[in-house]
Structures are given as structure tokens and as C-alpha cells.
């Protein structure tokens, strides 16, 4: 038998076994909102402070800035860390001001991964991405990689710089996915990222920088204060 017909046979057998069992009435659909703890705030100074404290607790570095000053913050960061090549996606909300911030350090993620792999793995010091939103409860970032910002941009370089707008904070992951109706259409890859990659697999000793980024810097743009919207 070919593997496909094998699989069809297995499918029929498994489903038949499941269907043969005496049916039981399915319990009512669980009420998720009622079981979760009451939400904290998702916006305002207190929420921003909570988010930052929580993210720092996971070893992310958080730098607060304003919608006008963030490119300067990026430049200072690149200089201070001696970054030689910083990778970014074109056509994002950030893209227009990246050349001014990063100058000759800037590289664009233009090619498909297969062609770009050798340089991505060996010659890029940092990847910079936009962020879809932040989760206050856990200090987490929600990333939705797409055509402009591939998923490996926030994964392969040893440093991930994430530009987060304070206006996109949500109290919890649950609130965020319900409010934004994620179930109606997910991207190929949706991620919740909390701190740099880590492992405690050797004698339970915590080490940062396992396989993903060794460091995570969150540039937190306070666009919630003067109502100017996305950084421009």
C-alpha cells in the first residue's frame, strides 16, 4: 500500500473506534472569561510601568522613549553595543526612519531565506521588528511576522530589538485575542515572546541565549501620551 492509502486506512480505523464508543453528552462550552482572574489595566502610566517591570523581570531591557525620539534611541543603542549590521524589514511603520537612525549599519531583509541564510546566520548582529501589541500581565510581546518582517528576523540574530507602541498594550493575552478577533484569521506564525531565549537544562541553572536571541531590547514608544499614533 502507498503511504497515503495507509494513512487513509489508519484514519478510518481511528475514527471508527472513536465512533463505536457509547456517546456521552458533550458538556457545555467552557466559559473562559469567568475562569480567568480579573484583568488589570491595559493602558495608562500604571499599565506601562507594570509592563516594563514585568518584561525586565524576564531579562528584557526596556527603554522608554517618545514618538519623535525613538530613532535617536536606536542610534545610541547601535553605537553603545558596537552593532555593525542591523537587519530590518522594508515598508513597515518603522522603515522610513531607519536609515536616519542606523545609517550604514542598516541591512534590509529582501531575499528569501534560502538565499539569505549564510549571511543571516553569520553576519547579522541584530534584528529589529515592529510589535503587534504588548501583554501587561506577563510583560510579553505579540509578534505577527509577515511578508515584510519574516519570522527569522526576530529569531536568528543574537540581539532582537522590538519597537513597541504603548497604545497597543492589552491587559492579558486572552483579552487581546478576543478583542482583535484572532480566531477569524491567524497569520502563518503568531508569537508571544517574553524575554530572551533561555534554558535551565543543565542542573537547573538558568542561562540566557539558548538557541534564540541572547538579548531582547524593547524600545517602548509612549505614543499614548500625546495621541500622535504610530511613530512617525
Amino acid at each position, binding site marked *: 500500500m502507498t503511504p497515503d492509502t495507509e494513512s487513509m486506512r489508519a484514519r478510518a480505523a*481511528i475514527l471508527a*473506534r472513536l465512533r463505536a464508543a457509547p456517546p456521552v453528552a458533550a458538556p457545555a462550552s467552557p466559559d473562559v472569561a469567568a*475562569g480567568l*482572574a480579573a484583568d488589570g489595566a491595559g493602558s495608562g502610566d500604571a499599565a506601562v510601568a507594570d509592563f516594563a517591570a514585568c518584561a525586565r523581570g*524576564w531579562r528584557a531591557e526596556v527603554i522608554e522613549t517618545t514618538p519623535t525620539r525613538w530613532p535617536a534611541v536606536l542610534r545610541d543603542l547601535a553605537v553603545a553595543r558596537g552593532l555593525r549590521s542591523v537587519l530590518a524589514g522594508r515598508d513597515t511603520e518603522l522603515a522610513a526612519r531607519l536609515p536616519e537612525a542606523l545609517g550604514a549599519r542598516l541591512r534590509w531583509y529582501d531575499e528569501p531565506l534560502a538565499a539569505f*541564510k549564510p549571511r543571516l*546566520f553569520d553576519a547579522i548582529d541584530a534584528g529589529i521588528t515592529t510589535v503587534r501589541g504588548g501583554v501587561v500581565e506577563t510583560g510579553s510581546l505579540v509578534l505577527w511576522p509577515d511578508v515584510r518582517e519574516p519570522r527569522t528576523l526576530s529569531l536568528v540574530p543574537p540581539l532582537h530589538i522590538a519597537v513597541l507602541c504603548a497604545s497597543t498594550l492589552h491587559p492579558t493575552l486572552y483579552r487581546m485575542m478576543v478583542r482583535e478577533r484572532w480566531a477569524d484569521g491567524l497569520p502563518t506564525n503568531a508569537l508571544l515572546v517574553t524575554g530572551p531565549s533561555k534554558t535551565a537544562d543543565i542542573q537547573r541553572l538558568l542561562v540566557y541565549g539558548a538557541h*534564540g536571541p541572547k538579548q531582547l531590547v524593547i524600545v517602548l514608544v509612549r505614543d499614548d501620551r500625546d495621541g500622535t499614533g504610530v511613530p512617525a
Partner: protein
Amino acid sequence: MSGDRQPRPQDFKVQSRAALADPALRASFRSAMDFLVDKRAAQFPDIGAYERLRSLGTRIREHALAKLPELLERLEQNLTALGVQVHWAETPSDANRIFLDIAARHGAQAMVKGKSMVSEEIELNREMAAHGIDCVETDMGEYILQLDGDRPSHIIMPAIHKTKADVSRIFAEKIPGSAHTEDVDELIAIGRRALRERFRDAPIGVTGANFLVAETGSLVLVENEGNGRLCTSVPEVHVAITGIEKVIERLEHLPPLYTLLTRSATGQAVTTYLNIVTGPRRAGEKDGPREVHLILLDNGRTQAWRDQRFRATLQCIRCGACMNHCPVYTRVGGLSYGTTYPGPIGAIVSPHLLGLDATRDLPTASSLCGACGEVCPVGIPIPELLMRLRGAARRRPAPERKPLRDEGAARSRAETLVWTAWALLYSRARLYRWFSWWATRLRRLTPAWQGGWTRGRVPLRPAPRSLRELLAQRRR
């Protein structure tokens, strides 16, 4: 226990005796489990809130299992519409054949693999190696074990039985050009460097899945290291394998289960990554696999499912909390069980995977203290399931039900005889009186050797007079 001699569930008693006699191993498990127990406790300071969350998690899993056939079909439909190829496997060999077929179609000689207990269940690494395919573990703990020819002893912290001195020796021997060091940061850096080019070059990435979301057709992976993300992002082909029970109905059911999982497992409010994969690379995207496969494995799960008394076994989200809190597991360690899943969860799930003959001793490896059932974040009544399995191992199956695989395999003549005699005596008052009269009169004849009982205790002997006789005397 490294090298070729793999532990087997049949040898549980011998293996656990050996483990008990190893003070270093016992100390390392004890301290590791105490550490995990404390970290979990710190995550649930408010009992009321925890109970609410736990009953929500329980209801979500019960609900999904009640609708399992329907949800599996919905999942398959949504995955297929996204372009994911769904395969079904009844047995480990079915699953391995599917892997081999995918590898052959891509001419793949190597795979990088994220942590997946189901891939251990089917012994994927060994099967692929037998066909010349190098399947590399990339989770740091699993990688260390693979280099040493060892196997995991804990489902969340697989290399918990290794010390940094062990790791240092293994790396120095097996990774060319690595400096000898016992600095954990440096050891992890060595592992990272060694695996980097494997990620870059491997044509196939293999992972498990912590959850499958029926309504969106998503595969969900929970991890800290980033190796799972690399496996699902860099290779051209991604193959996920998991058990049929992992499906949940809706995306909004994910956050509560995720938080129960991370807090119960390692005492963290979140992991570094929650990775939700929905279909292969779409038009215009520059990375991500062009082909995504999902292999749905049965391997005995339908047996647990079809019998209401055992269905709750499948609610498990593989957090490992029951192991961390188990006084038996803490003492004998994970390898003694000789199964993919050790500890209380292993004792309730392995009989369905491997049959009750090979696993007859596992449900007895419990003091029934109840700690496992108390900490299980999805409310599995583990002690009750253990009792039912003990019964099923030793009794002839009831004719009105479909028997479990190898049900009654541990039945013994002597035991059956004893229970039959007991039932006879205790249901007939005159016979009982007659028996107890003789038993008390002939008490000196009771044997000094009474099996397991006398190994550590003085022999049991009837009292000089039965209670009934004493009372009758007093009344006179």
C-alpha cells in the same frame, strides 16, 4: 544507564531497586523536585483563583475530549484548507513510515528535532538512524542525552539526572574542538554553536505540538529555548507529530491551558515563546516551511478514550507536576519506569500504549497519597485511575465491556484462590465462626514466612481469642 541496555517497564522493580541504592541520583532528584515544587507553589498564591483556573482547564479538556471525533475532523478540514498535509497513524511503525516517506521524497539525510515526547514514544531517532537519516535533538537537555546515548528521565527537564560535570565530559568527548569547561554559560554556548549549522542546513524540522486548535487549524508549541521556533521556521519542511488527544476546540481555550501548563511545569507565568503555526509559507513570505505535515498518532489512545473509566487520562497537558510531587518518582527517578512517560502520568497512560502485561507493575508504584491528583492542573483523578488499572491488571475482564489490552495479565492463581476463600468466609456467618475458632486455636501454626510482608515486618498471627469470643465472655 547509558549505552544499549535500555530500561524496560517489565523490569521496573529491579530498576527502581538499583536507583534507590544510588545516593547521588536520589539526591539530585530530591533537590530538583523540591525546587520545582516550590516554584510551582509560588505561582499559585491564591487558592481560590487557582481552583477557578483549574476547573476551567479541566472543563476545556473534558469538553474537547467529549467532542474528539468531531474536532479531529474539523481540525483536519481546516488544516487541509490551509495546505497542511494531515497523516494518521495507528501505531509507532505507521508513524515512522510516514516520516521515512517524507524524508525520501525530499532526499533528506538529516532532520532537526524540537522536544517531542511523542517522537520518543515512536523511537523516531532510532528508526531514522536505521535508515541512514540523522535526526538531531536540539533541545539542550535532549541533545546532551542523545550525545550520551541516554534517555530522558523527566518529561519537562529531560536531563535532570545529569550534572554539569557529566555534561562537560560528554561535550568534550563528542563535540570536536570544544574546550573542557564546567561553566554552565560556556557549556550552553558550546551546544548553541554546535547546533547552529544543523538548524541552518537541515531540510526537515520535526516538532511535537502542545495543542492543536480545531477552529483555526493551528499547531501550538510552548518553549523557552527557541529551538522549536527554529525547527518550524528555517527548514523547508516541517513535520509535527502528536497524539490525537491534543486537540482543543477554540483559540480562546488556549490562554488558560497555556498558563496552567507553564506554571505547573516549571513555575513560570509564561515561557519565552508561545509559537502558533497556522499553515505553510504563504505567497510573498520570505521564510517558513513550504510544506507542513501533521501526523496524528493513536497508539492506544482510542482504548483509553472509548472506556469512560479511563478517558480522563487523555486530559493530560504533559506538565509533569504529578511527577514532581510523587514520593515514588522522587525516589526511584524517571529511568526506572522504563517507559517514555514516567511517574504517575506514565503509570496511567503507559498501560494503554504498551498493554497491561508489560506495565502491570507501574500502577502499583504509588502510595496513593493523592499528591498527583491534587496538583494536576486539569483535574485528572490519577489515584482513582491507578486503582482501576490495578484492578484491571489482576481481574478477568467483565464480559459486557471491551477488554483493555492484556487486561487480567497479572492475575495469579494463588491470589484468586485467596479472594475466593475470603468471599466465601465473609458471606457465611457460621462458616466464619467455625474458621475463626480454629484459626485462634491453631495460631502457633501460622507460617513465619509470609511473602513480602515478612521481608520487613514480624509475621502476622491471629490473636488468642477473636473479638466475638471476648465480647461473649464479658457479657456472661
